[in-house]
C-alpha cells in the first residue's frame, strides 16, 4: 500500500467546519451506554477487597468463610491469576497491581475479589475474607523515598543508568540524562543565574466515570469484555496475556467512555472481572467506587525538581540544568525521564542538562495523565524563566521569544526540530489584548509555555459504502471527546460528499485490526490519516466501477467533489457519476465497495502552547480567584475547531485545578485521606472564568491535512502560568503546587516576616 502521508496544501470543504457530533443525541438523551450501563442475563456483581495498609506482607488469605456465604459464586486471590508473563517485567507489574501477590504495596492495593448474586452479598463476603498482614514500614514522599534510610519497596531493584553498578537495592529504579553542550561553560558565561527547588503533589485524572466492565467467559474458552477504556485492543492484549487466552477469542467492546485522560490506558480490574467470570461460570459486572478510583487506579507522579538557569544581560540563556525526581508508585516507570525530556523543550539552548530519577513509593501505580510528566517540569522551568526575566529586567514574553526554539534548533531531548509553533504562539500571546488589559489591586498576570511530543501509532480503519451511497466508517481508536465527528469530516472531505452522509463508529476488537490506544493526542491524528488512506482506497474502487459503468479505461476516470469524471475529449458526453449512482450499481459491477487501511501513523508533529492568566489573591486568607484565562496553541490543522477549543479549555481547566487545589493527601499511616470529590477538589463551574482560545495552524508536514495532536499540550503550561500569576499578585515566589490557600498564606506571612 503506497500511502503518501505528506502534507499537501489544499482548500477544505468539510474540514474546519463545526457540525454536530454523530453520537450527540444519544448523549443528551441519556441513551449513550457507558461502562456501567451494560448488563447481561445472569450477571453477578464483582467486588474487590483492598489493602488498608500502605505496605504489608500478605502472610495468608483465608477465603473459606466468604465462599460459604449464600449467594457467593466465586472468590479469587492472586492464586487464581497465576504468573503467565514469561519474564515480561512490565506485564508482571500490571499483574501484581491487579492483584497483590506477596505484598500489598499501597493503601487500596487489591488482595482478593468476590462475585456474588448482588451487591449486598458481595460486600458482606468481602468482610468474611481474612487476610493476615505483616505490616511493614512505608514511605509515600518522593524525597524521603530516595534516602538510604527509607523502607525498601522492592529489594530486587538496583538503580539502572548509574555509571557504576550499585551493590545495594534502592527505591530509585533508574537515572536518565538528557542534554547537550557544556553547562559549566554555559553558567560561566551567565550574568544572572536563578536556582530554585520546586515540589508538586500527586494528582488524579479525575474522570467522572469510574472504571467499569462486564466480563463473560464461556466454558469453550471464548470471552467477551464490555469496558470503558482508552484502548480496547490494548486491553484485549493485556487481559489475554494475563489470563492465558488467545487474543482473538476475547472480544473487547469499548463502551462510551466517561473520561480517561491517560487513566484508562491500562488494565486495573478487568483481568479480575474475567478471572471471576471464569471461576463462577457466569457474567460478572465490576464497577469501581469513587473511593477505589482514587486509591487504586493510576494518578500522576508527585515530584521534586531543582532548576538552575543562567543568562546574559542581553537576555540570552547560556545554560540550563534540572534534576527531576518523580514518584512512580510501587512499580518502575519512566515518568522522570519524560519530565527530563520535556523540561526545556521550548527553548534554544547551547548548554543544557537534565537528570531524572524514577522513585518508588507506597502509593498507587503512576499512570499517564495528559502529557504525562510535562506539566510539573514546565512548572519548575517556567517559574525559573519568569524569575530570570525579572532579574534581567526583561518582559517575560520578550525573554521567552528571544530564547524560543525554532525550525533547526536542537531540542533539549536530542533531535533537531522541523517546523514548530512555539515562536508563533509567543508572538500571538504578546499581541493578545489580554496582555494589555489593566490589573487591579492584589491581581497578578502570569504566562508560560508548554511542549508535548504527540504520538501516532498503529491504526486500522474500514470505510464501507452502502448501496444507497451512505458511508459507514469503522475506526479502532476510542472517541474520548468528539473524534467521531472529526473523522466523519475527514472522510467527507476526502470523498467529496456531505458530512451527513457518513456515520462513524468505534468497532470492537473482533471487527477491525489492531489499533493502539487513544493516547498521546493520537486519536484524530492517526485515525484521520488512516481514514484518508481508506477513503483513497475506496475512491480507487469507485473509479474502477465508474469505468466499468461507462466502459472506458479506468485511467480516464478521475474523482472530483464526490463524483467520477470521465476526462479527455473522447468522453466529453459522459455526465459525471455520483458516489450514490456508483454505489447503487455496485451489485452488478463487482459487489460491495469498501476502502480499508492499516498503517502506522508516524510523524506526529510536536506541539507547543502559550497560556496567559490573571489571578487575584486575597492577602489575608491566601484565597485565589482566576479572573481571566487565554490559551494559544498550534493545532496544525483544526479538523473540528469547536472540539479543538474544547481540548484547549479542558486541559487548561485541569491544569488550573492542579495548580490551585488538587492533591493526594496521605496520613502518617500511609493511607489516602481524601479519596473522594469532596476533598479532592477539582474545579467547579463557579471556580472558572470563560477560557479564551486562539488556534494557530502551522501545518504538520507529516499529515496530508497538516493535522497535529491537540489533546494534551493544553495541560502543560497552566501550573506555571498560574504560579507566575499568583507570585506576581502575592509578591512572593510560589514553589509548591498546589498553591492552596494555606500554602499561599504561609508564603505571604513568611515574606512579611510574620
Amino acid at each position, binding site marked *: 500500500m503506497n500511502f503518501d502521508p505528506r502534507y499537501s496544501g489544499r482548500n477544505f470543504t468539510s474540514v474546519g467546519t463545526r457540525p454536530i457530533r454523530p453520537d450527540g443525541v444519544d448523549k443528551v438523551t441519556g441513551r449513550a451506554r457507558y461502562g456501567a450501563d451494560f448488563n447481561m442475563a445472569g450477571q453477578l456483581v464483582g467486588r474487590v477487597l483492598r489493602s488498608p495498609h500502605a505496605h504489608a506482607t500478605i502472610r495468608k488469605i483465608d477465603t473459606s468463610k466468604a465462599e460459604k456465604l449464600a449467594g457467593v459464586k466465586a472468590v479469587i486471590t492472586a492464586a487464581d491469576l497465576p504468573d503467565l508473563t514469561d519474564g515480561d517485567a512490565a506485564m508482571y507489574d500490571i499483574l501484581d497491581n491487579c492483584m497483590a501477590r506477596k505484598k500489598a504495596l499501597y493503601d487500596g492495593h487489591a488482595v482478593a475479589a468476590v462475585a456474588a448474586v448482588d451487591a449486598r452479598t458481595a*460486600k458482606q463476603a468481602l468482610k468474611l475474607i481474612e487476610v493476615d498482614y505483616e505490616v511493614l514500614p512505608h514511605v509515600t514522599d518522593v524525597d524521603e523515598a530516595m534516602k538510604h534510610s527509607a523502607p525498601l519497596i522492592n529489594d530486587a531493584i538496583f538503580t539502572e543508568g548509574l555509571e557504576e553498578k550499585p551493590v545495594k537495592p534502592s527505591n530509585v529504579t533508574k537515572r536518565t540524562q538528557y542534554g547537550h553542550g557544556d553547562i559549566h561553560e554555559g553558567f560561566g558565561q551567565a550574568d544572572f543565574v536563578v536556582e530554585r527547588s520546586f515540589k508538586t503533589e500527586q494528582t488524579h485524572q479525575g474522570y467522572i466515570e469510574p472504571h467499569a466492565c462486564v466480563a463473560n467467559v464461556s466454558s469453550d474458552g471464548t470471552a467477551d469484555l464490555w469496558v470503558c477504556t482508552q484502548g480496547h485492543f490494548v486491553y484485549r492484549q493485556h487481559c489475554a496475556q494475563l489470563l492465558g487466552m488467545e487474543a482473538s477469542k476475547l472480544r473487547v467492546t469499548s463502551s462510551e467512555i466517561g473520561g480517561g485522560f491517560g487513566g484508562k490506558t491500562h488494565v486495573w480490574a478487568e483481568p479480575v472481572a474475567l478471572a471471576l467470570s471464569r471461576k463462577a461460570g457466569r457474567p460478572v459486572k465490576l464497577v469501581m467506587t469513587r*473511593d477505589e478510583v482514587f486509591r487504586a487506579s493510576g494518578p500522576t507522579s508527585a515530584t521534586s525538581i531543582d532548576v538552575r538557569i543562567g543568562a546574559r544581560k542581553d537576555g540570552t540563556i547560556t545554560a540550563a540544568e534540572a534534576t527531576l525526581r518523580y514518584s512512580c508508585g510501587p512499580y518502575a516507570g519512566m515518568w522522570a525521564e519524560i519530565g527530563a525530556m520535556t523540561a526545556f523543550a521550548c527553548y534554544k539552548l547551547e548548554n543544557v542538562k537534565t537528570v531524572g530519577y524514577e522513585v518508588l513509593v507506597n502509593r498507587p501505580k503512576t499512570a499517564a495523565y495528559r502529557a504525562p510528566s510535562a506539566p510539573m517540569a514546565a512548572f519548575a522551568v517556567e517559574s525559573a524563566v519568569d524569575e530570570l526575566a525579572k532579574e534581567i529586567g526583561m518582559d517575560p514574553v520578550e525573554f521567552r521569544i528571544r530564547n524560543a526554539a525554532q525550525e533547526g534548533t536542537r531540542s533539549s531531548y536530542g533531535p533537531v526540530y522541523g517546523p514548530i509553533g512555539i515562536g508563533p504562539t509567543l508572538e500571538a500571546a504578546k499581541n493578545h489584548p489580554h496582555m494589555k488589559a489593566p490589573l487591579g489591586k492584589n491581581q497578578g498576570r502570569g504566562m508560560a509555555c508548554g511542549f508535548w511530543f504527540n504520538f501516532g501509532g498503529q491504526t486500522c480503519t474500514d470505510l464501507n459504502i452502502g448501496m444507497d451511497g451512505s458511508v459507514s466508517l469503522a475506526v479502532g481508536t476510542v472517541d474520548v471527546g468528539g473524534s467521531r465527528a472529526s473523522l466523519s469530516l475527514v472522510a467527507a472531505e476526502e470523498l467529496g460528499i456531505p458530512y451527513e452522509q457518513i456515520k462513524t463508529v468505534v468497532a470492537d476488537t473482533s471487527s477491525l485490526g489492531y489499533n493502539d490506544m487513544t493516547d498521546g493526542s493520537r486519536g484524530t491524528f492517526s485515525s484521520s490519516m488512516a481514514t484518508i488512506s481508506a477513503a483513497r482506497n475506496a475512491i480507487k474502487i469507485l473509479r474502477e466501477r465508474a469505468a466499468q459503468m461507462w466502459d472506458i479505461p479506468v485511467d480516464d476516470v478521475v474523482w472530483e467533489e464526490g463524483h467520477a469524471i470521465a476526462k479527455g475529449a473522447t468522453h466529453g458526453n459522459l455526465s459525471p457519476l455520483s458516489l450514490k449512482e456508483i454505489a447503487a450499481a455496485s451489485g452488478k459491477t463487482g459487489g460491495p465497495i469498501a476502502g480499508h487501511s492499516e498503517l502506522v501513523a508516524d510523524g506526529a508533529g510536536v506541539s507547543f502552547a502559550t497560556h496567559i492568566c490573571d489571578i487575584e489573591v486575597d492577602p*489575608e*486568607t*491566601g*484565597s485565589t480567584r482566576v479572573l481571566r484565562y487565554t490559551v494559544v496553541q498550534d493545532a496544525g490543522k483544526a479538523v473540528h475547531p469547536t472540539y479543538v477549543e474544547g481540548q484547549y479549555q479542558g486541559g487548561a481547566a485541569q491544569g488550573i485545578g492542579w495548580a*490551585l*487545589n488538587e492533591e493526594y*493527601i496521605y496520613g502518617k499511616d500511609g493511607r489516602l*485521606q*481524601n479519596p473522594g*470529590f*469532596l*476533598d479532592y*477538589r477539582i*474545579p*467547579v463551574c*463557579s*471556580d472558572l472564568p470563560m477560557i479564551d482560545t486562539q488556534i494557530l495552524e502551522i501545518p504538520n508536514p507529516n499529515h496530508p491535512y497538516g493535522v497535529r495532536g491537540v489533546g494534551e499540550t493544553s495541560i502543560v503550561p497552566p501550573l506555571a502560568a498560574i504560579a507566575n500569576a499568583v507570585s506576581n499578585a502575592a509578591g512572593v515566589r510560589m514553589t509548591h503546587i498546589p498553591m*492552596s*490557600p*494555606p500554602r499561599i*498564606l*504561609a508564603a505571604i*506571612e513568611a515574606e512579611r516576616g510574620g
Partner: protein
Amino acid sequence: MRYIRPLSIEDAAGLLADSAGTAAILAGGSDLLVRMKGGFIEPDLIVDIKAIDGLGEIRETAEGFSIGAAVPCAVLGENTALQKAWPGVVEAAKLIGSKQVQGRCTIVGNLCNASPAADSVPALVAAGAKAVVVGPRTRRTIAVEAVPTGPGKTSLAKGEIIEAILLDKRLPRSGDAYLRFIPRTEMDIAVVSAGVNLTLDEQGRVKSARLALGAVAPTVVLVEEAAEVLIGSKLDEATLERLAKVCSGACRPIDDKRGTIEFRRKVAGVLARRAATTAYARAGGK
C-alpha cells in the same frame, strides 16, 4: 433493615426508643446516605420523618420563627420573612452543599450530624437559636449549642428527636452574618467559619453581640470574649483588630486535610472581622 415513615413525632420517637439495633433518622439524607455508602453506619431501622405533619413547615409565631426539622435548606432561602429577619442564618443554611443537596438537607440534620464544620451551626449559635427536643413522653427546649458535644456526638438521648429550631423575632437595629472559608467557590466543607449577631443602641454602638466560630475546635465555639470586645464599640479599626486577635486566640484547631492550625487561627480572625462588619451594616450601623 426496616424503613418506616411515621405520621407523628411521638410515633417517630417511640420507634427510635424501642429500636434494638442501630436506628437512624432520615430527613434530607445528605449525611446519612453518605455514611451508609461508606459503610460507616449500617442502620437496622431508618425513620423517615418527612411525612410527619408540620415538620416540613416554617411557621411565623408571636415569638419569631419555628423551622421544622424536615424543612430543606433551599426553602429557608425562599422564605422572604425569614431571609429578611435572619439573613446570616439563611446564608449559612444556603451554603451547605450544592443545589442538589440544598433541596434535601436540613438545618436540624446539619446540627445533629455534629460536625464542627457544619455551616448552619455557627450562625444559629450566634443567633441564639433554640432546639425543640421531643422524646416519647417528653418535650424540652434547649440552646442550639447544647446539642453537639463533640465530632459526631450529641446530647440527645435515645428516642429523642429535634422537632424544630426556634429563632427569635428580629430586634430593631440588629443584624447577623455568616462567612466561611473554603478553597473553592462551592462544594467544600468549611475550613473555618464565623457567625455574628449584633444589636446596636440608638447611637449605633454595639449593645449586645454573639459570635461563634466553626471548624476550629471539636464543637462550634461561642466566643464570649469577642462579644466583650464588640460591645460598646462602633466597629472602628482598632476594635476589629482586637476582635480578630481574640477570635484567633479562641481557636483550638487541628491540622488536617482541609487546613493547618496556623491557617485556621489566622483566618478565623479575618472572617470574624469581616462577618462582624457585615452584621453591623445589616443592623444599620455605619
